[in-house]
């Protein structure tokens, strides 16, 4: 190969992909008998302030602790006698009215950690607060069910722990064409085309080749399947809207991927929180509304469950910079068509009974939500995936 060719080939896309016969064999492993159900997990990264999202608008303690950043009673979309939604969540209220939204309050875990990194790990791996796991709960799901990288997709360019399994990892992409282009470089292709199954027995070297083969076949599969569907709706013009649009295109093209993970950033509001969070909630709820609409129009909403969490809530008491610091328990949004208990699933946070950091105590372990989703929605054994048994809830 000439230098110029190599340069061209390592940087430019190219044509058809030849699949060596044994790679095909790899792909034809009996398809797992998986249902149609899809799960979309959204993380509000940075720690969303749950108390200004779902507001206890009749609680004096709330107003007393937040003289500068509380949401005034008339700026609230009232839902019950105690709780209302932030005014920027109007589109979510519409979902709630249709019976599509269930809000679970006070979700957390024992001995809460207030570090973004660590608490995100805990939520993503479903570990205890003093336990370090190498695999994510969705990763373990695709380890047992699906078994291909594209069984779980993160809408980003690098993969988070949540989708890392023991034997197989999910795949990350926010642009299937680019992902595909990256496995279509001629040199890469040439190496793969040449392969006979022999190397697969070699320990780590075999693992590398296997990962290469799976990556290229998943990349190709995602690209070719997802391009058959183009959404007709207009999503809000921002990166989160784009992530959901891509997710909808995956789901509506009937790709066999089961679980999706999307992270939306910006929620670490230590200073001047009010405007920042308003904007974020506005972006979140408007994008979600279009997303749900898109799925409904294509008859896939009934088979999709959307779970939104944040790695922790924020402290009841505002700080001096008109913001809030890292807290503990928080609310989780469940969005879907056939919910058992639309509206508020459980009691409002108890602001009189805080933990020793003056943060909200949890009453529902987040892993109970996972267990419920695994058993009742994805119809798999939750205990093998969570390595433990958690009480099931009845939101679905």
């Amino acid at each position: 190969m000439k230098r110029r060719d190599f340069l061209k080939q390592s940087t430019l896309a190219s044509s058809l992909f030849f699949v060596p016969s044994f790679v095909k064999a790899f792909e034809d492993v009996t398809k797992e008998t998986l249902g149609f159900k899809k799960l979309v997990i959204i993380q509000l990264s940075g720690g969303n302030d749950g108390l200004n999202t779902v507001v206890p608008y009749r609680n004096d303690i709330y107003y007393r602790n937040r003289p500068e950043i509380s949401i005034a009673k008339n700026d609230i979309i009232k839902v019950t006698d105690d709780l209302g939604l932030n005014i920027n969540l109007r589109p979510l209220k519409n979902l709630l009215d249709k019976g599509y939204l269930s809000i679970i309050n006070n979700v957390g875990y024992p001995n809460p950690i207030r570090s973004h990194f660590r608490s995100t790990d805990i939520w993503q791996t479903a570990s205890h607060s003093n336990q370090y796991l190498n695999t994510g709960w969705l990763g373990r799901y695709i380890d047992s069910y699906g078994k291909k990288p594209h069984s779980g997709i993160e809408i980003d360019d690098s993969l988070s722990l949540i989708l890392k399994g023991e034997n197989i990892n999910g795949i990350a992409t926010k642009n299937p064409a680019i992902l595909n282009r990256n496995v279509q470089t001629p040199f890469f292709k040439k190496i793969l085309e040449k392969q006979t199954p022999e190397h697969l027995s070699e320990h780590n070297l075999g693992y590398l080749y296997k990962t290469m083969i799976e990556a290229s076949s998943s990349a190709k599969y995602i690209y070719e399947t997802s391009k058959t569907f183009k959404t007709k709706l207009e999503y809000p013009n921002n990166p989160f809207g784009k992530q959901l649009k891509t997710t909808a295109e995956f789901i509506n093209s009937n790709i066999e991927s089961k679980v999706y993970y999307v992270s939306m950033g910006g929620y670490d509001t230590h200073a001047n929180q009010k405007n920042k969070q308003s904007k974020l909630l506005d972006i979140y709820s408007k994008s979600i509304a279009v997303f749900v609409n898109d799925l409904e129009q294509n008859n896939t909403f009934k088979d999709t469950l959307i779970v939104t969490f944040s790695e922790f809530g924020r402290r009841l008491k505002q700080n001096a910079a008109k913001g809030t610091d890292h807290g503990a328990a928080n609310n989780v949004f469940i969005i879907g068509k056939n919910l058992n208990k639309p509206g508020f699933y459980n009691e409002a946070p108890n602001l009189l009974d805080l933990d020793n950091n003056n943060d909200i105590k949890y009453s529902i372990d987040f892993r109970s939500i996972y267990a419920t989703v695994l058993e009742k929605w994805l119809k798999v054994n939750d205990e093998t995936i969570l390595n433990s048994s958690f009480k099931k809830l009845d939101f679905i």
Partner: protein
Amino acid sequence: MNQKHLQHLYSRAGFGLSYNDYSKLNKEPKSKIISGLFSNAEKWIPLLVDVSELKALSASKKMNAKNSMTKMSAKDKRDLTKKSQQKIKELNYAWIKRLEQTNAILNEKMTLFWTNTFVCKDNNILHIMQYNNTLRKHALGNFRDFVKAIAREPSMSKYLNNKQNVKKNPNENFARELMELFTLGIDNYTENDIKEAARAFTGWSFNENGGYKLRKKQHDYGIKTFLGKTGDFNGDAIIDIILEQENCARFICRKLYSYFVNPKINEERINELTSIFFKNYDIKALMLHVFSSDWFYAEEHIGVKIKSPIELLVGIQKIVPVTFQKEKQLLFLQKMMGQTLLNPPNVAGWKGDKNWIDSNTLLFRLKLPSLLLNNAVINLEEKGEFEDRFETYYKKEKKKKQYLKVTKSWIDFDKEYGTLSVNELKVLLIVSKIDKDTEQLLSHLALTNNRDFLIQLMSIPEYQLC
């Protein structure tokens, strides 16, 4: 020493064997080569970045606060943290440069190993730089002194909350990780041992200059019962008792074996190493034993380890020196591959080996030589940070076609490798076995020069192994 063995030694004790190293060493006996590694290691120097400006700024802000009889404002604190974080990035770049250029490679490789054993992270450049050099200082020293030193480090004190560990209200975090992750491993102590150990470390703190300080009023001088012993133990006594457990030596030997020898553990070898290390916890003696033993050079250990992102990155740069014009891009590379120095994921550190690899990281790693040496287009974006605002979190979206802005010293490469035959270059670059089909592909490439061939060699999966 035969070439394969020499390459193996240098890929584990360092970041690969250059052709110059090879020509210098290939006639030498094994013992001389190994003692050379150790004597060079002794010549380590601290890794420092210039912090004078930050120190001056910090002093003046403190003075302002003192003069106005107030605490430093939140904004002043934020400014300082920001400056400090910028310096930590500089330390990251300097560290990678160091790995590429140092003669004390064994000491640096050991330091990397300890970084991932005594895992720690801090926003304060003065403290984390001190911590980093403490790792360097003890990297081949005595493990007992080492543990006692890290227990006194400000960064560690903050990272594992020992600062908040006081008599009235003990915080167990440091005591727990000390045993679970630094010395004994899980199941070799009880919850009660943790509680008692935590008491012994109460009041351990640091002064303004980063030195150790015991806050006597916060220290619990009472009687503790720990791992079956009873006494008025302080933190040092706890560490001594931990080291009396053979499990401690075993725990470290396992870690060390999977890092330097083979991720697949051989229990017999672990027993052998444990019996040596347990004698007096001499790290140098242990490493000398590993590298001098015949079994270290067994076929089953050669080229079977998946390189860490840093090993991969540094390995390439050792062959073709690369200067980053935009150092930020060096952070981008680390982030995309999942290992940013000074920014470990959590106190358990990076898992290593297979955990480095998923579809996305592997594709990126295979493309790394083209990105660094061949102006390949960057078409992927790094994730935002938790602390980022929404716009910043996604800011990388806007940039279109990007390349790494680097200067490559191809001339140095040509001087060292230009006259080698294709086969010599291949043997020197790839320590692992080469897949038969890939081997065939390589032999059929129409080659024009060694530069091209080098990039291609670095792009095959085998180059991911060391």
